[in-house]
């Protein structure tokens, strides 16, 4: 089930929340677990057993740690990690591997054609972080399997993140405050995410669909850049909208997840961009791979090797295709360059050049990210940089620019912390009438946006989730 759909918004969520709030505390985890399993089974009735198995492995691992000596613990941890990675590897990467082998050795091993279980990349990373944290002694193992399963399968974050670590919610799994203000703030946050997803991401994504399916002969240079800009906004509003919805629902249930996005497109360098984009993933790689490898407290060469490993893995985590590998390595190289050479020059640049530099590299990376077919990717780059061979500007560009102008402006504005700036300004106002006026305007805005959002969901023709298959 996706959050931005009629069944979720009008049945699943209200019905669940009603039960959740009415039942006494000791049943709240149970009802959350039951609904999370229904939520998962809605889209993956079979693979739910895979998730149950995967969580059970790490749960068992945690229990075994309790009564083991240090050397044994290490063995258990290694076994758990091997099982986790094998499942992920088998279900996500086997066809990619077979296909690559077929190409390299010119053989034709048939593909397995296994469907990717929804959310497997996310929940595998969650369960692995649990095992490692327990091993390191950062958290106490969970004794109750149902509680542990509740943590992993909790529907707000189950299928598209953020990657919530066990230590973040450990206490809240047992004692959490469920308040009206949690519900209020959570619902408002949820709505922001819903609006970002439906009104901005889906809308501008339509432009990207048009451009990406045009042949090279129909494209102009500017049209290719307009399409790439559309994809740049689509992926941000889609994914961060999803995180907002997850964090908002977490709040409604009494859980406080960590933030996952912090206006990545206002970053002034790629290093900063990755501190602002998909934070739960980059910090996962940092804490569980980069630092154990020695991080930056090693020689330059080893440090470069470490960055390289982390970013190759980050790339491949995003999808089982070569373009994702290239995408990861691309960022790895830029981050190495920035760290050892570029940063001191970038610092001296005026701000607008820092932004231009960052956004340019980010947009290029999204082009690589968008095409898992290498020929299509090459063709697209051909147009992006093919001044001379392709028309620079054409009527089609002007037509689509005028059609999407307003939505692009809106996307630019909300890529910046404009909402927070305005909110802070408004909080300073003391005049009661003005405060009341603002309230009325907000109320009307929320209701109108909700009506428009529902109208999109009802028409339901264009509602894909970009990060759904990761």
């Amino acid at each position, binding site marked *: 089930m996706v959050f931005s759909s*009629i069944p979720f918004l009008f*049945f699943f969520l209200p019905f669940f929340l009603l039960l959740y709030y009415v039942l006494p505390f000791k049943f709240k985890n149970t009802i959350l677990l039951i609904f999370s399993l229904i939520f998962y089974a809605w889209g993956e009735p079979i693979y739910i057993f895979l998730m149950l198995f995967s969580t059970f492995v790490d749960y068992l691992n945690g229990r075994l740690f309790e009564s083991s000596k240090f050397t044994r613990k290490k063995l258990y941890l290694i076994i758990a990690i091997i099982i986790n990675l094998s499942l992920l590897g088998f279900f996500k990467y086997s066809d990619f591997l077979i296909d690559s082998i077929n190409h390299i050795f010119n053989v034709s091993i048939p593909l397995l054609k296994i469907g990717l279980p929804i959310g497997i990349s996310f929940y595998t990373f969650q369960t692995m972080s649990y095992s490692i944290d327990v091993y390191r002694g950062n958290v106490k193992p969970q004794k109750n399997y149902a509680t542990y399963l509740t943590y992993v399968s909790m529907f707000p974050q189950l299928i598209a993140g953020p990657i919530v670590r066990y230590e973040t919610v450990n206490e809240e799994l047992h004692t959490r405050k469920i308040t009206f*203000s949690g519900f*209020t703030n959570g619902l408002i946050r949820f709505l922001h995410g819903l609006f970002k997803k439906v009104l901005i991401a889906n809308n501008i994504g339509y432009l990207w669909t048009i451009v990406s399916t045009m042949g090279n002969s129909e494209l102009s240079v500017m049209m290719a850049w307009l399409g790439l800009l559309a994809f740049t906004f689509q992926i941000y509003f889609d994914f961060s909208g999803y995180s907002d919805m997850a964090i908002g629902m977490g709040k409604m249930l009494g859980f406080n997840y960590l933030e996952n996005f912090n206006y990545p497109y206002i970053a002034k360098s790629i290093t900063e961009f990755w501190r602002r984009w998909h934070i739960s993933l980059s910090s996962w790689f940092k804490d569980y791979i980069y630092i154990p490898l020695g991080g930056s407290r090693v020689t330059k060469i080893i440090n470069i090797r470490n960055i390289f490993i982390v970013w190759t893995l980050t790339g491949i985590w995003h999808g089982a295709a070569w373009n994702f590998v290239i995408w990861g390595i691309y960022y790895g190289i830029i981050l190495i360059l920035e760290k050892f050479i570029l940063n001191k020059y970038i610092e001296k640049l005026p701000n607008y050049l820092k932004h231009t530099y960052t956004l340019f590299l980010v947009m290029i990376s999204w082009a690589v990210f968008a095409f898992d077919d290498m020929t299509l990717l090459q063709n697209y780059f051909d147009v992006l940089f093919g001044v001379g061979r392709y028309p620079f500007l054409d009527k089609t560009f002007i037509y689509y620019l005028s059609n*999407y102008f*307003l*939505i692009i402006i809106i996307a630019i504005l909300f890529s910046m912390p404009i909402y927070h700036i305005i909110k802070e300004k408004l909080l300073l106002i003391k005049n009661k009438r003005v405060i009341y006026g603002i309230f009325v305007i907000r109320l009307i805005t929320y209701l109108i946006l909700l009506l*428009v959002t*529902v109208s999109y969901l009802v*028409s339901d023709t264009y509602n894909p989730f970009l990060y759904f298959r990761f």
Partner: protein
Amino acid sequence: MKEFYNRIIVTLISIFIVVFSLLLIFSDKKTFSENENRYLQVFPKFSFRNLKDGSYTSKLQSYLSDHFVGRDAFMSIKTFYEKISGKNEINEVYLGKDNYLIEKYNKPVNNDKIIKSLNNLYHELNYINMNLMLVPTSITINKDKLPKNAVTNNQLDTIKYIYDNIDFNTIDITKTLMEYNKKYQMFYYLDHHWTTYAAYYAYQVYCYNNLLEPVPIYEFDVEEVTKDFNGTLYSKSNDYSRKSDTIALFLYDKYSYSVNYVSKDIIKDSLYEMDYLNTKDKYSVFLDNNHPLIVVTNNEIKTKAEIAVIKDSYANSMIPFLANHYKKVHIIDPRFYKLSIVQYIKDNNNIKDMLILYNTNTIDEDNGIVTIN
């Protein structure tokens, strides 16, 4: 204070959601959407297999979207939002100037298959005087009504390509439609069909090409039978801000006809089914919507000549004119007629003329025509 206001906002939003979910549960469920001209999703039957392959939940999701209370109103909200956000096309429909909604023309993919199929048909029936008429749609004739800067695929290229490769007579009506479009409306504002005027002038061109004398336009009694026709493009775009269409019938009292809807075994004495004028689907007033095979007999005419018309729905408004020149008009819609067309024509040995009439949009999407043999 702010917290208090936020509580009011979320309370109202919660009420909104709960009210709509209750309405969705308890409202009467329609089975058919007139506006979209399709049957709505029925409540899916549960089975383990349906659940396993995901069809149960996806059908359930369509069911809930289809039966959402105020669905049509929500669709128009969406259109309104898209319009104010600057979109000039919705659901493959251009929001054109001067009240025109114009259907998009997608790049044709079946040209060669169509050519091959039609030429084959001709070689099997080479004793027949065969004519192909491809009608350009509003996107070509009303090019100047398209939104500013809109770039479209060129229908005239398609027509030229097909005509160049066809082994029998082809009839070009583009110029005629362009010319008369200055005087009369050749296409409906809100529907993808041509108007009766366009059908008349196309019929005139057919006559000139086949040495028949067309009935002059002044001999018809032109009657406007409805002024509130909201056609398919209106439904697709949900743009309710536009003026409805008028449908005109060109009535002619010299002859009487009998219309045999063969598959239904129904014989009527009129070319028009007036009951449709009370429904949304008003264009079906012409020969009762789509049928695999209709035979129209002119009761008084002296000639023995018969014609076969292989066609899409555009022909429906032109047949009343052709019926004044033939004893019988055999109307075959290959989308629905599943028997051999060649055999049918050989069996009716008075058929000496044939007209293949399609609009340039549907011919490419119609699998009937490529499997005609």
